[in-house]
């Protein structure tokens, strides 16, 4: 059922209104429209501006530490007994996750546009830390909105943000998690639209955010493609990435979309199990709707109220997903699957023990699924896991689950 995507088709998306097929778009209150249109125009210009791109590349190389390695997980592959498992090491990026690829790009955009005040939403705190970091780097004022519940479960990252000079706003509304943080960031933006740049942390939000975040994160897939060809002499057979809002996944997938032979797997948070309703898997179990400025798959009740989500990992605990993923699902180009909290914890332990690489709990979802997948594949095939982040931020959560006090 999959369609062959040509370069030409891909370069036409999103269309002029920010649509990916039936998804995406710009569903915001009128006050933000002018800013979004300006951003769209300026970004289109800067995307072709050699000076901007050279600056971005330099930051990625010298500040973020790119390229990140493509590492052969030899022991894990042997234990799994199927395809060769390779790891794209985004956990080695400065600040410990892929998020900084995007924040450095957007912060440069803000600087080029002359905006000095930065706001961001965060779930796990990784995007908040990555934003606070680049704001320190570029001398920008930084405000991070974070659900009060996440402030609790990611206290380490809250402290990191404060050390970096950011103001952290604990959001008390709604379910006190990522979606509510995004609501409050949007509210702040409306009130300070003249001097403020909103650095959205994933490929969601109104057009042009899904486009520009995808562009900034695509460095992951471009490097992987080149490294795979160098190291294995061929393209990978499968790519596996976790999907919260979908930025690390789209960054990995995008440069491979027209390579039909490469299977794409986005792994959502199955929480306590899809049939319990306590999960964060809109692509697996939701339906299309409109939230946070775009049309996409959502978790909602029959009356269109956004549903509460559950995941052991704060960074996947979001009821929506980037619109481009919704489109890739509907045209059958990518597969979206889920793994439960327990399976993810298994993946976390496994990668830690067998390879000495402690993944973020978000990433652990991709690890768990990739191990299952690799076991069904041949020895001469390759699977690449996008290791979107490292697990240090999660040790409190892991300890708690194991009943240990630290």
């Amino acid at each position, binding site marked *: 059922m999959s369609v062959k995507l040509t370069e030409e088709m891909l370069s036409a998306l999103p269309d002029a209104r920010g649509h990916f097929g039936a998804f995406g778009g710009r569903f915001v209150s009128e006050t933000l429209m002018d800013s979004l249109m300006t951003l769209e125009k300026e970004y289109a210009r800067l995307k072709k501006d050699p000076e901007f791109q050279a600056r971005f590349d330099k930051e990625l190389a010298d500040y973020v530490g790119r390229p990140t390695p493509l590492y052969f997980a030899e022991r894990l592959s042997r234990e799994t007994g199927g395809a060769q498992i390779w790891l794209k090491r985004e956990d080695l990026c400065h600040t410990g996750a892929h998020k900084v690829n995007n924040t450095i790009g957007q912060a440069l955009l803000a600087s080029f546009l002359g905006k000095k005040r930065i706001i961001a939403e965060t779930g796990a705190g990784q995007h908040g830390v990555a934003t606070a970091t680049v704001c320190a780097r570029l001398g920008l004022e930084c405000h991070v909105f974070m659900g009060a519940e996440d402030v609790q479960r990611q206290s380490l990252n809250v402290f990191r943000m404060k050390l970096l000079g950011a103001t952290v706003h604990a959001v008390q509304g709604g379910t006190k998690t990522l979606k509510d943080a995004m609501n409050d960031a949007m*509210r702040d933006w409306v009130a300070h639209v003249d001097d403020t740049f909103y650095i959205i942390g994933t490929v969601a939000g109104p057009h042009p955010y899904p486009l520009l975040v995808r562009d900034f994160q695509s460095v992951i897939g471009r490097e992987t493609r080149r490294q795979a060809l160098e190291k294995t002499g061929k393209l990978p057979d499968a790519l596996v990435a976790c999907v919260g809002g979908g930025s690390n996944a789209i960054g990995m997938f995008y440069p491979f979309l027209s390579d039909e032979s490469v299977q794409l797997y986005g792994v959502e948070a199955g929480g306590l199990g899809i049939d319990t309703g306590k999960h964060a898997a809109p692509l697996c179990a939701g339906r299309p709707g409109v939230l946070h400025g775009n049309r996409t798959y959502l978790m909602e009740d029959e009356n269109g109220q956004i549903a509460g989500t559950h995941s052991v990992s704060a960074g996947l605990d979001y009821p929506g997903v980037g619109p481009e993923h919704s489109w890739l699902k509907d045209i059958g180009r990518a597969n979206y699957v889920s793994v439960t909290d327990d399976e993810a914890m298994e993946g976390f332990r496994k990668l830690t023990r067998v390879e000495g690489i402690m993944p973020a709990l978000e990433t652990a979802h991709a690890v768990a699924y990739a191990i299952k997948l690799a076991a069904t594949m041949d020895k001469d095939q390759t699977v690449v896991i996008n290791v979107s982040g490292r697990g240090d931020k999660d040790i409190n959560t892991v300890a708690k689950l194991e009943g240990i006090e630290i």
Partner: protein
Amino acid sequence: MSRIEGVLKALKGQGRKALIPYITAGDPHPDVTVDLMHTLVEAGADIIELGVPFSDPMADGPVIQLACERALVHGTSLRQVIAMVKEFRKSDDATPVVLMGYLNPMEAMGYERFADAAKDAGVDGILTVDLPPEEADEVAPLFTQRNLDAIFLLSPTTTDDRIRAISEHSSGYVYYVSIKGVTGSATINVEEVAAKVNHIHELTALPVGVGFGIRDAETAAAVGRVSDGVIVGSVLVDTIARNQADTDQLKRALTDLLHPMREALDSLAS
């Protein structure tokens, strides 16, 4: 002519300004909303904006966020809100009712089914906060075909080209959001609002309602001087929050709040 157009024309003929209160349906309880709507009319409302509660009201400040939460605790759905309008219409077929809310509950119900049900219940206009005209090409025709007014927002950041384009997509009135900010957040700068509203009048023949930041007779009169109507929201919703335990007291409090605004607006007429 739509009911909204009729009311606004008649007011204009009398040199009067429209008083347009907003309350969130289902707040503090679905059982009292229709009663509160009648109270608003008795206190001088010309048009009612009835909020459809949403779990993620991104354009609203804390006051209306909490109203949505109170309404949703009782499971107030879009279908129920439409049923409330139907009930209201049994004893009031003169006061226009505008549903104001976010897109997703309408999308979940299905646009065609929503438009049919709204029309059947006697709804007059639809204002969807997160639906700019650019994204309305599927939905807006369903409203127009049923003679439901599609009301769009204008803001301090809206350029002249957009003011013209948005007005072309609108009917009934256009809603000028007087501040950069969410509902209930800031105090308005009357001079700035006046300048912008006068400018909007040059670009469209539609009546202009002004909302956000109107909290008493004084601000109502100041804004009424330049606009065709004033929309009063957060201060009413806050009054509901503070008097939710006692419906009679709540009705008195709402009346006490609206009356002076009505008088202040009417004193502009002479």
